[in-house]
């Protein structure tokens, strides 16, 4: 008899992580936004509810519905089925654009404070999230911001043609209007001073404000024609820069470079080139940002490595590049080989090659440890620095990321700050929870739209090329119209409608195996994982996706195995099961926030006001 030690253990579906992982998008979202639920709410015309559900986890649905880096989309199950993710991000914008006034449903702020004062440095999304989470608990939150307005890079760097000011200010106000003590135009030049004040904890959300330099010959010979990308974008936003030269070279091919080149197009640039050292597969910019830049006729040149600024009579006239070729060296590392050089004439150069953190205002003798790269040491779980009571998050903590990560850092830091102020352990993180609710309405009827919709991803409409260049603040994307959004919501597979299995009910009739359109299911004898993987109904394409393994089945002692990878949540297995051993149950992930147990809400906070009338019942 073979030893059963190496056999697969039954999956513990009571652990929220199993079903959470099945909801690829939610698992991929740093803030774990309940995406399928917000999409269903949009499908149902409940835009306000959808917005409020979003806000609970990501705080800035309107901003993020336009600008999010959308880590949820590449992992969307739809990609693995038809190559195109659900337009998760732009649907968020639909909820935001069509919502009613949500102010009545935001948490109420206690008039009586809890006596604890928190200082935040910087008013970017990280600090704003900390304030958003702590204000309803009675904290006094003071935000010190160097600039005249809050928002951080969302305001200074994300161009208005991607993020209209009105959307930005409205959502920032939802937080600041909670009564946050905003100290604008107040750069902090000594953390020690803040620590000497009467604060119970400090959160550092000062971002990564330093653009990287390119110190090659000629860099300082015509400084007025060479700009650091993030500083230049900021100057444009402040109105300090209103025009640029006709021939502009943007160095670097990340998202900042995309914003720079598109901004240049609007300030008089006629011949705007993005200069990349590597080839397209290695471009750092998100594919959609590249597409948008290309649509605006920006030229992107590969394999150009800058070697010097060409300056004549104190005037920048061009830039010289090494023409390089790449080949894979040892260990798959790319190595370049110079095959020539070329001077490209230009009037202005914008450097968009990265950002660093900078903490000249943090004294090095106050217990905050910095590592060899001059980065503060921050605990990945608690977000506390090596000085207790000082927390850090957003771009400041580990270098530039994006808004949604800044928000998630803010949530986690707020949990820690709350625990810290209450003298509780920071390491013991509050538990997540999960509700499982059957979605069965009748023999062949489910609460959700379970049919697979073959529609292709809706295409975003853009403002006409000529028109959009007229002003900086013309938002390029027009948003989905009602028809588009109603079609797009149907592409969502409702991955949170989980196939829940009760082994003791199964009579091994094979009905579920036979009906499953994606061949997810297998009944077989147990064995070691590698061996079992060979015996699945359909080959395992993505071993990183979860496998469900049941308890032994009553009649033969075999097991039910489900490869969660490609399940379209059609519910046919449950419909064809004679004993309801399969049921479709909605997994509702319950997340804890500062001062709230998993799934809890603050006083006054509402997600389902049942304001918007349901458009029509499904079916």
């Amino acid at each position: 008899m073979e030893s059963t030690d190496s056999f697969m253990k039954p999956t513990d579906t009571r652990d929220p992580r199993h079903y959470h992982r099945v909801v690829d998008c939610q698992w991929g979202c740093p803030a774990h936004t309940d995406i399928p639920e917000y999409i269903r709410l949009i499908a149902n015309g409940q835009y306000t509810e959808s917005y409020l559900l979003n806000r609970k986890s990501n705080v800035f649905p309107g901003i993020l519905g336009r600008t999010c880096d959308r880590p949820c989309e590449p992992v969307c199950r739809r990609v693995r089925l038809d190559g195109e993710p659900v337009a998760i991000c732009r649907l968020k914008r639909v909820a935001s654009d069509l919502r009613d006034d949500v102010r009545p449903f935001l948490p109420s702020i206690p008039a009586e404070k809890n006596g604890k004062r928190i200082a935040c440095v910087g008013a970017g999304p990280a600090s704003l999230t900390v304030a958003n989470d702590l204000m309803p608990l009675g904290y006094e939150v003071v935000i010190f911001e160097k600039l005249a307005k809050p928002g951080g890079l969302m305001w200074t760097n994300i161009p208005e043609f991607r993020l209209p000011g009105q959307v930005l200010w409205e959502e920032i106000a939802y937080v600041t209007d909670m009564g946050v003590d905003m100290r604008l135009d107040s750069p902090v030049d000594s953390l020690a001073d803040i620590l000497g004040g009467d604060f119970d904890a400090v959160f550092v959300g000062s971002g990564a404000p330093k653009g990287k330099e390119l110190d090659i010959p000629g860099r300082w010979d015509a400084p007025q024609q060479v700009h650091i990308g993030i500083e230049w974008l900021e100057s444009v936003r402040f109105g300090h820069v209103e025009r640029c030269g006709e021939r502009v070279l943007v160095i670097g091919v990340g998202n900042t470079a995309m914003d720079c080149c598109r901004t240049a197009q609007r300030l008089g640039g006629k011949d705007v080139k993005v200069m990349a050292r590597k080839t397209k597969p290695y471009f750092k910019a998100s594919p959609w940002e590249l597409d948008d830049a290309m649509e605006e006729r920006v030229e992107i040149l590969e394999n150009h490595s800058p070697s010097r600024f060409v300056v004549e009579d104190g005037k920048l006239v061009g830039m010289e590049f090494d023409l390089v070729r790449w080949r894979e060296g040892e260990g798959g590392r790319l190595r370049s080989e110079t095959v020539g050089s070329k001077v490209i004439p230009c009037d202005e150069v914008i450097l968009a090659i990265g950002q660093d953190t900078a903490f000249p205002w943090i004294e090095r003798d106050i217990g905050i440890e910095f590592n060899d790269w001059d980065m503060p040491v921050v605990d990945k779980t608690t977000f506390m620095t090596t000085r207790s009571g000082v927390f850090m998050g957003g771009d400041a903590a580990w270098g530039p990321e994006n808004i949604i990560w800044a928000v998630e850092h803010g949530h986690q830091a707020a949990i820690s700050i709350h625990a810290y102020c209450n003298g509780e352990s920071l390491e013991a993180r509050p538990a997540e929870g999960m509700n499982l609710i059957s979605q069965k309405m009748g023999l062949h009827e489910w609460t959700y739209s379970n049919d697979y919709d073959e529609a292709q991803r809706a295409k975003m409409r853009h403002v006409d090329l000529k028109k959009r260049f007229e002003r900086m603040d013309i938002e390029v994307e027009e948003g989905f119209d009602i028809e588009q959004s109603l079609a797009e919501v149907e592409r969502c597979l409702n991955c949170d409608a989980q196939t829940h299995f009760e082994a003791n009910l199964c009579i091994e009739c094979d009905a579920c195996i036979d009906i499953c359109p994606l061949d997810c299911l297998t009944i077989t004898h147990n064995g070691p994982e590698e061996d079992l993987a060979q015996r699945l109904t359909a080959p395992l394409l993505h071993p990183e996706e979860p496998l469900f393994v049941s308890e032994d089945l009553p009649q033969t002692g075999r097991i039910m195995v489900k490869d969660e990878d490609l399940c379209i949540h059609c519910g046919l297995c449950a419909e064809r099961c004679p004993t309801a051993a399969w049921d479709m149950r909605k997994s509702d992930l319950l997340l804890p926030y500062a001062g709230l147990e998993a799934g809890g809400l603050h006083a006054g906070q509402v997600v389902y006001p049942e304001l918007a009338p349901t458009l029509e019942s499904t079916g």
Partner: protein
Amino acid sequence: MTHIAKPRVRHPGLATNRLGLTRRDYEGGMSTLCAGCGHDSITAAIVQAFWEMDIEPHKVVKTSGIGCSGKTPAYFLKEAHGFNAVHGRMPSITTGAHAANRELVCIGVSGDGDSLSIGMGQFAHVVRRNVDMLYVLENNGVYGLTKGQFSASADRGSKAKRGQVSREHPIDPVLLALSLGAGFVARSFSGDKEQLVPILKAGLRHRGFALVDVISPCVTFNDHHGSTKSYEYTRDHVNALVHADFVPPAEEIETTYEAGDARTVVMHDGSRIQFRKVPADYDPRDRDRVYAYVRERQRAGEVATGLLHLEPPGRPGSETDFHGIHGTADAPLAHCSFEELCPGATTLEEIQRAFR
């Protein structure tokens, strides 16, 4: 959303057969049988077998009579020709189709009521005529479609859902076919595709009549305690007597078995049936021994399954299939010209003269 059809979207890693088709291409419409019906599982096994055999769906005739089983041809091979005959008359319709076009692959699906009650006479004669077809008898011990009355295959003493006891002798289609001279007789269970699929493949390849009696639990009317055709009872009493592997002509037999442990029957086209784990005193080629063995197991309360009997080519009952017996033309009649089929009054005159 209510009543959705099985979506067309499929697993991107599905294998294709020699025709470049996936298993999904052999499916039919959405089943309207009860959830968990054994018949649906047999449908899935049929789909699998046709796909594995690389058979072009449009070169197949699928026929059936009346019953839940009779509905199933609608659920596989949507591109095949099909005819849903009146109750018990599937054999004559299939005989006609096969007579007219011997190139088509014939599969008939029937039920225990359809075959052993109203269609018993037809069943007997299609065996006798040795029509080249795969005859799948979906055996659930009841008339499923008419709400669960005992059928002629219900075992004596077995209980109906409401507790009535079956008092008459059952008819066993396997023993019946053996005694009528069938050259290919098998029994299987809808809940065991590993056994069923190779048997269906062998039956499709067998030249002549091939019976596969498949125990196929009726979840709605015959899956309770006291039934002898339930999932649980069948699993507890099945004796997978004969393991048969179907080996297509081109493939080498890799495994070797000890003498007496394996028997190989080479089929007319060079494909082989490899028997494994056959009891020492069992010879699937010996009709009388097989009959005795199946009876013996029955008396011991077991349901013997497997490819129980296979008459090797060259023995009576195998080469003399329907077209051989009748000496019909090699070309399918359906493809003959009008002149060939109706050679005219003068020729008729000549033929008649020959009989005078």
